[in-house]
């Protein structure tokens, strides 16, 4: 299923449902509510893809990178494992537990590896994470029939072809406990569905679920390629994940500034800003104009600390935010929040291009983020 179906330079057109849920105190909950919520938006997906990302699910391996892999066959697995062993100490290699589930067919071999790069390899590198990225790129590009679909720490992505609720049950998500979850139901107009193409997209601990179409994909991809990102999944969502990785991890931008790159303010607005903001946003657009995500989208970007909701600049796709005690919701529709939670206090629709950010409370964070957290806790955003 992974071989021979990739269209170079192509991307995937899809309409979708997205749902994110995070406990900002870090209290964990299982995948049950996520499955219920995403299933509630069934008409936004067509059975050609569903997936979840969950944070905090592998506490026993919290310091190890978890590669979750799809293989077409044993040959691909062997090749990949040899490749990995060359540079990693593999602590655990295991088949990802699944259950037979009607509506989920022809699954690839699903394996996960908890591991860390060998000292020898990382010594040569200043930046371990860049090494991980390059390994992911190498496997995805070079090993036919193998695909890394998640590569972070203490987190995992579970996705495949089918309705999201079926995928959830297939992966037995009720057995996982995480404090932050995202889910995706997919409606590709491209009938060629494949497991790797389902959302979320992940690199390191960045996960992206996406509803929309990135009309600027062609240039976003070419720009990221200049920075060593090889877009192998042939979907526009992939570029979001890489762009986020580039901006936040590698270039050190704050999440908010990153959001202002992906959904840049209009020049008109920038022109009206006070000098400092004007300079900042002008520089952001000048430098990163090529990864402005143009076209209709709403996305949820997650990492271990944050869950970020964002729509395109002119809000062509839906996104609703909600709050219930320590729980933060970001969703395509409001109904699922109420379905799983009687205590949703307030919900609101963020403005186009305005990021909403949910963040773990007990972590040190840049002050810049504070304001957005405040705005998320209020209903006035």
């Amino acid at each position, binding site marked *: 299923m992974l071989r021979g179906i990739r269209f170079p330079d192509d991307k995937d057109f899809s309409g979708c449902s997205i749902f994110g849920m995070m406990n900002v105190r870090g209290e964990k909950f299982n995948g049950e509510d996520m499955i219920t919520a995403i299933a509630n938006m069934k008409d936004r997906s067509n059975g050609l893809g569903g997936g979840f990302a969950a944070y905090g699910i592998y506490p026993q391996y919290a310091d190890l990178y978890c590669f979750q892999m799809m293989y077409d066959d044993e040959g691909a697995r062997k090749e990949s494992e040899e490749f990995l062993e060359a540079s990693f100490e593999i602590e655990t290699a295991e088949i990802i537990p699944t259950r037979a589930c009607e509506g989920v067919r022809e699954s690839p071999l699903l394996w996960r590896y908890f591991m860390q790069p060998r000292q020898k390899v990382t010594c040569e590198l200043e930046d371990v994470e860049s090494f991980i990225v390059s390994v992911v790129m190498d496997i995805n590009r070079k090993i036919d029939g193998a695909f890394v679909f998640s590569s972070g720490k203490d987190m995992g992505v579970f996705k495949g072809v089918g309705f999201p609720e079926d995928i959830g049950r297939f992966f037995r998500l009720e057995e996982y406990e995480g404090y932050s979850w995202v889910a995706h139901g997919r409606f590709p107009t491209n009938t060629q569905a494949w497991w790797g193409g389902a959302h979320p997209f992940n690199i390191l601990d960045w996960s992206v679920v996406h509803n929309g179409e990135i009309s600027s*994909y062609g240039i976003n991809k070419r720009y990221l390629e200049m920075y060593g990102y090889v877009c192998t999944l042939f979907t526009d969502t992939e570029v979001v994940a890489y762009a986020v990785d580039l901006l936040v991890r590698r270039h050190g931008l*704050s999440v908010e500034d990153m959001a202002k790159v992906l959904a840049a303010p209009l020049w008109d607005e920038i022109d009206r800003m006070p000098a400092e903001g004007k300079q*900042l946003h002008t520089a952001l657009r000048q*430098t990163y104009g*090529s990864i402005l995500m143009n076209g209709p989208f709403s996305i949820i970007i997650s990492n271990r600390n944050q869950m970020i909701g964002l729509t395109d600049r*002119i809000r062509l796709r839906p996104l609703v935010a909600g709050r219930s005690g320590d729980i933060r919701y970001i969703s395509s529709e409001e109904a699922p929040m109420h379905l799983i939670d009687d205590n949703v206090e307030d919900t609101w629709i963020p403005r186009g291009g305005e990021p909403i950010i949910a963040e773990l409370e007990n972590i040190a964070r840049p002050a810049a983020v504070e304001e957005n957290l405040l705005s998320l806790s209020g209903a006035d955003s």
Partner: protein
Amino acid sequence: MKSYILPEFLIDRDDYRCIRCEVCVRQCAFDAHWYDEEDDEVRVDEDKCAGCLRCVTFCPTNALIVRRNPNQIPENANWTNEVLHNIYKQAETGGVLLTGMGCDKDYPIYWDRIVLDASQVTNPSIDPLREPMELRTYLGAKPDALEIGRKKGKSSVLTKISPQLRLETPIMFSALSYGAISYNVCESLARAASEFGTYYNTGEGGLHRDLYQYGDHTICQVASGRFGVHADYLEAAAALEIKIGQGAKPGIGGHLPGEKVSAEISHTRMIPEGTDALSPAPHHDIYSIEDLAQLIYALKEATHWEKPVSVKIAAVHNSAAIASGMVRAGADIIALDGIRGGTGAAPTMIRDNVGIPIELALASVDTRLREEGIRNRASIVVAGGIRSAADVVKAVALGADAVYIGTAALVALGCHVCQKCYTGKCNWGIATQDPYLTKRLNPEIGTRRLVNLLTGWSHEIMEILGGMGINAIESLRGNRLRLRGVGLSEEELRILGIRHAGA
């Protein structure tokens, strides 16, 4: 010597319509029309007709038709009329064939073999009349990454961004030198660029003192002749451009005949009145890439590192490698001029046979710079045959940051592309210094026409962008996925980096 050259055009006059007002007589600087008082008839001297259609356009009764002389030699794919005409001319004069404007040979025009994409169903197209649509473009080197500091919850930029040119539409006016064109054309270009928020380029003719007021929208060229280059000139400019080559005449210099070097031009170019202005083929201080780097840095130093420096080359076979070198030599802007780029005067053989189409040069340069990871270090501006908003969109999607328009701007001002620029008798008052002719271009009107053109094209670009579901030009720039080729070979598609329509 009896000339064997047949008149290129015949002029038909409808006697019923002709009112003998003599407008045609007065409008033709080539003296193709004359009034015969004795017979009260307007007569023609067709040998002199340039086919510029000035008379046709101005005839108040539409009494005139200028048509190609049907007297042609027997059809021959090899020995065409044009070839014969050229040989007769050279047999009669012993000279080098001269021409004006851009190459008119029918090399493939790739713009016309590339089609654009639009949104249907899966994503919405955007209505530019209701939604914002951004064409603003910044030209100049961009950093690889932006370093951002945070204080009291506020982000601020720590990276020093190189000087940038801000364009409100990705279209600039190409290098057209004062001397090749009249002062009024320069003024029209300067005012239109200022009004619209874009730039015009002085070419190698220097900057007339009356145009310093538009310096903020002026790209001042430093060419091999160094005409008119002095401290104030560099200071007045918004950006500087080192001209290495020109699409119409790659590898050769320029020549402004002495009769065009009027007092004003002499003053502006800093050469004696009435002397020929000869631009050498190479810069005699640039014999290598490191020499170019030295000049780039000299110009930056001279202007306090406040102005981007562009380097313009003719599109030739190894443009991609050259461009890479130029970027590494410190050029902030790479200007590429394709084989169809215009000129005031060039040897016909050079114009028509040297260089490559801009589309291919652009694609290969953009690809190369990306492969080398240095695409952001310089902007790419392309010139040479941009004829419409669609060409602009295709150029941007292939990877250009902006385009230069020369011929299109002149056409907006009235040019009918008769290719007789080199005669100095431009009936449209454009490529001439004859005061009787130059006043035919009123800069008020010229400015308006150019601004209208930019407005129209910009609206069209917005429409096309909106149709693609894109509302900022940077999301189109280099977005080759939105292009498809029609009727192109595998190799052409590969170079252009696009897929065939239907695929």
